[in-house]
């Protein structure tokens, strides 16, 4: 389905001034909280450097570490599955559910399962999937997608959550207090946790040396689900593996600080063995990741630990919201991941960047996000997706700038533009003029001043 371009979607987002302002300010506050946490750690920049090096080392030796992880996990009693793509991943999940005659699945947040479109697949097969992260649950009940990878419901107002809960959870009419609503969902989901037989989580990290899977949450939803249910399914992208607990210590110091400005998430859970009498299934998913390893221009996206800091700092994301991007992950990392997945489909997101490089500077693993966006733009012409107007303008500029004579004639003629009637200057084709006055060309250019005042002397 062809989605609206970022340009138009963003314009629409901004037309709701109050929401747009709130969205921008709230996400900026998250960036500020990150800054405050980073300022408390003198070795912060060293940590980022180390995290980047550990990730690069791991992804360039990925087969070795995946092998080590799988061996260790199986020795611990877990069952390791390998999924080449989304379809295989979903089929494996279904198979496990069917083996246990389960018609319900309680899950905690996982962007990978979004990527694999797991929920719609399971619904079609008659499985009731219950999202347990509050933000994801709200979106599930509203039947809309997430707009941020860490704060998925950031764009929803409390009144709308209140109305939703009135309808779905029979809460008090008109009560939109976040604490009241959260408690109502606690009660509702508590019943579902207690009744669940199969629970699913994502994985923030998989430790090669020891075979444990690490999940970081604030809500305890991952642990409520997996401690009640006997069967635990983990969906893990192959790039999530890291060598050791020593390596992990670097990432856990960076993750929550970068994502939400907390020194740590409330829970950093290590699942090493299945529960007694239970099962632990780890599905390692490729879905195009090993292809990205071969792409030297874009391999760095595999370092990403899905913290969302790049979104919080991106001035364009803050003012356009997650739904303005056509890929399910928005912001700087989303623009890049979308291009890796399907450039001909997601290239329209490339306009959503001023190349300010703020994202490069906050990324805890130093992914060169802005530089990669620049590189993707260079590659558009080759795949037939270059913007025709920009191409024509660039050709025109090149011709003018290459020939000094032509350029100087243009410079001389420029001030005449000032005399054009306003209606002509501010015609529809002049996009600059929609929100701004056009600059006045100086009566005497620098070149002509130089020739008169300096050269002639």
């Amino acid at each position, binding site marked *: 389905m062809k989605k609206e371009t970022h340009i138009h979607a963003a314009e629409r987002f901004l037309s709701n001034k109050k929401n747009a302002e709130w969205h921008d300010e709230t996400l900026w506050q998250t960036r500020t909280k990150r800054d405050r946490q980073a300022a408390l750690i003198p070795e912060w920049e060293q940590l980022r450097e180390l995290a980047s090096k550990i990730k690069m080392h791991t992804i360039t030796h990925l087969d070795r570490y995946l092998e080590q992880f799988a061996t260790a996990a199986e020795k611990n009693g877990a069952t390791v599955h390998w999924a080449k793509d989304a379809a295989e991943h979903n089929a494996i999940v279904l198979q496990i559910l069917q083996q246990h005659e389960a018609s319900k699945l309680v899950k905690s947040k996982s962007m990978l399962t979004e990527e694999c479109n797991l929920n719609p697949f399971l619904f079609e097969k008659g499985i009731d999937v219950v999202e347990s992260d509050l933000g994801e649950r709200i979106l599930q009940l509203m039947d809309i997608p997430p707009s941020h990878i860490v704060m998925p419901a950031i764009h929803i107002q*409390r009144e709308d959550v209140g109305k939703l809960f009135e309808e779905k959870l029979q809460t008090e009419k008109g009560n939109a207090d976040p604490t009241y609503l959260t408690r109502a969902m606690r009660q509702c989901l508590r019943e579902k946790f207690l009744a669940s037989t199969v629970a699913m989580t994502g994985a923030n990290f998989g430790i090669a040396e020891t075979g444990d899977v690490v999940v970081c949450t604030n809500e305890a939803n991952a642990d409520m689900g997996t401690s009640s249910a006997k069967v635990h399914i983990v969906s893990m992208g192959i790039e999530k593996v890291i060598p050791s607990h020593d390596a992990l210590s670097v990432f856990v110091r960076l993750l929550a600080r970068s994502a939400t400005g907390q020194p740590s998430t409330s829970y950093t859970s290590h699942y090493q063995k299945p529960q007694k009498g239970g099962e632990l299934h780890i599905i390692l998913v490729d879905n195009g990741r090993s292809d990205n390893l071969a792409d030297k221009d874009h391999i760095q996206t595999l370092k990403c630990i899905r913290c969302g800091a790049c979104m919080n700092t991106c001035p364009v994301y803050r003012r356009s919201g997650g739904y303005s991007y056509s890929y399910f992950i928005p912001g700087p990392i989303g623009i890049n991941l979308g291009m890796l997945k399907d450039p001909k489909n997601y290239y329209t997101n490339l306009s959503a960047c001023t190349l300010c490089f703020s994202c490069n500077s906050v990324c805890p693993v130093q992914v060169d996000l802005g530089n990669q966006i620049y590189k993707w733009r260079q590659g558009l012409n080759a795949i037939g997706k270059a913007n025709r107007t920009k191409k024509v303008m660039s050709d025109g500029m090149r011709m003018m700038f290459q020939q000094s004579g032509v350029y100087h004639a243009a410079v001389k003629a420029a001030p005449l533009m000032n005399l054009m009637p306003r209606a002509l200057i501010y015609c529809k084709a002049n996009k600059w003029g929609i929100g701004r006055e056009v600059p006045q060309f100086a009566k005497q250019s620098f070149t002509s001043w130089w020739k008169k005042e300096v050269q002639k002397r």
Partner: protein
Amino acid sequence: MPLIALDAIHYSDKVEQFVEVSKSVGGNAVVLREGEDINVLIRSLYPDAGKSASNVPGIDAVINPDDVRTSQELNGISLGIVQGVFGVAENGCVWVVQNVKERSLYFISEYLVILIDKDQLVDNMHEAYKKVQFNDYGFGCFISGPSKTADIEQALVVGAHGAKGVTVILR
């Protein structure tokens, strides 16, 4: 694998730092005073605690969580008192390696008290991970403060699906 040789943060007073961070993340940390009775302290911190559960020797509790048959039976525990291994000063985390029959106790209790030895504090997560060990249960968790969420309009709500309050007692 790159060498992790960095001059990581150290605190002149680990206890003070741990207590400060615990409070800043919505939790609490208290040092057991010389001669103070731990059960008296716990009762003073949670005077309204109804059904309590603990398998820690010397701790008063209504039930022993190891006596239940299913994890669901622990629903309704208002105060879980559990043994932790060590604490981390930089972020108020406590490493809890499963030592109860049903790990749900750590999450299902309305409130949680975690006990650690006062001299079992490390400065940062690098030191922490050098001490992390698993037992036969194969589960461990760093817990920092109560469960929480800010998913509704970024308004912080303490108490999502796990404990609504956590106190670490250093003794």
